[in-house]
């Protein structure tokens, strides 16, 4: 058979579906093969839950604030923050893997697909979110055994919040992956992105507490996208919707996604401007 006689494949809806499915499936499959990564992803928040939270609950009293209807233990308060942490780490890790992919040629393989590049990138983001969801639910299961027991419906209502927050952080990481020149030390991303985002947020302490100690830090926390991701998850886990956080997360997602798609745009993007011979060029 020569290529000339082959029927040209149309990129119809089923083609898009196959492509999207294939990209997500690959991400999940790769993750399942890296047991060490799964374990690390699970141990990290559990260490926080078991050790940090146990020590911290003596220091910090959490008053009754929505969505909680009673006094809650610090473990209960911090759980949505740790869920956010899983999403954050996962997003940053997948961003770094993209830098790595770019060096090995896997990214080139993705980008040479005939589908629109923005579709490919969004599919890739959903793949990262799928992996994060596995981690989050595994964590919530262990947390349940540790007596962090949100209402059963919460496990369902938190799902869209997780997806949205995961997309937001993933889009941010995707944009970063186009900016980072080479596979850099994970420590750099830890110090300059993960730690500031995580600590200057409502993940570990309620915002009113922060305001008492530092009004400036309070303002920083309030504009931190991660705060809104955590609050969205916190309310959703108790079957409630926090409209302000939803709006913020939606807005940040659109912003980061737009920036990432721009950065990978073949004619305008950062790749083009820098002229990096990615994919093992010399």
């Amino acid at each position, binding site marked *: 058979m020569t290529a000339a006689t082959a029927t040209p494949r149309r990129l119809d809806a089923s083609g898009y579906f196959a492509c999207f499915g294939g990209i997500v499936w690959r991400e999940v499959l790769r993750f399942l093969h890296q047991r060490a990564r799964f374990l690390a992803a699970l141990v990290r928040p559990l260490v926080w839950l078991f050790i940090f939270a146990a020590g911290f609950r003596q220091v910090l009293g959490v008053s009754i604030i929505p969505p909680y209807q009673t006094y809650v233990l610090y473990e209960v308060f911090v759980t949505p923050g740790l869920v956010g942490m899983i999403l954050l780490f996962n997003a940053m890790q997948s961003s770094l893997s993209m830098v790595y992919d770019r060096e090995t040629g896997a990214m080139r393989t993705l980008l040479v697909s005939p589908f629109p590049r923005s579709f490919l990138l969004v599919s890739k983001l959903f793949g990262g979110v799928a992996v994060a969801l596995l981690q989050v639910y595994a964590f919530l299961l262990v947390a349940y055994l540790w007596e962090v027991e949100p209402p059963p419906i919460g496990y369902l209502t938190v799902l869209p919040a997780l997806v949205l927050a995961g997309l937001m952080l993933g889009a941010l990481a995707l944009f970063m992956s186009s900016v980072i020149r080479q596979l850099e030390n994970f420590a750099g991303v830890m110090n300059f992105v993960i730690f500031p985002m995580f600590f200057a947020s409502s993940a570990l302490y309620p915002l009113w507490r922060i305001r008492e100690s530092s009004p400036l830090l309070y303002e920083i926390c309030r504009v931190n996208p991660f705060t809104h991701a955590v609050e969205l998850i916190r309310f959703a886990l108790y079957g409630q919707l926090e409209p302000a956080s939803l709006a913020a997360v939606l807005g940040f997602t659109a912003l980061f996604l737009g920036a990432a798609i721009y950065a990978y745009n*073949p004619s305008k993007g950062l790749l083009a401007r820098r002229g990096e011979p990615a*994919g093992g060029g010399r």
Partner: protein
Amino acid sequence: MTRVAQQSAEETVDALLVRSVSHRFGPVVALDNVTLAVPRGAFVVLLGPNGAGKSTLFALITRLYDNISGEIRILGHDVRRQPTAALRQLGVVFQSRSLDADLSVLQNLAYHAALQGIGRSEGRSLAIDALAKIGLADRADAKVRTLSGGQTRRVEIARALLHDPACLLLDEATVGLDVASRESALAIVRGLVKERGVGVLWATHLVDEVASDDRVVLLHKGRVHFAGLVPDLLRLAQAGNLRGAFMRVTEDARAEAA
């Protein structure tokens, strides 16, 4: 245009056409007015030392970023204006390894099929056929990690051809392979040219991968110094072998620049 006419037009159109493409990064000129063609069913060697501009050219053809001037057509489709139609006719073997080492051979091929919009079951049967052709049918469920370098390259070649493209690009495909694997990879690709009428652009810096009747494009410092058949190159450069011709042509370029 009738369907028959359209088909015959497609048959005469080049698998790959690069016309007057220049590219620069800031002040650095990476490609200077590069023109080359890969007809259907032709094996064209893009010969150039490291830093000649091969990687930039490949980045442009695969649309990692757009060409600024000139045009690049794959089977007549402009890469910049009709990327979907163009990329669908393109298969690529990148210089660096791009298979997932932890996944099986079949899973890697299925992923690639999906990237081309091919559904799961069809992708699977295409993959099994492709593996049979490169003699690796029995390794379908093996993890890529367990394959030898030569086998990995063959899988990458099979993958690049899974969606039956008209044009195949290979960027230093034999880097890191032993002599036997190199020859087997070359033989597979040359066979494909004859069998399927694929147009192949084979980039290398190794002159001994060029056969005596191949078409070659000599790329040096971003410029095409020669494009044509090997015997013509030898005659032009008045050299006994390709290595000598290559040195002669690039030296002339250096002398001109000085």
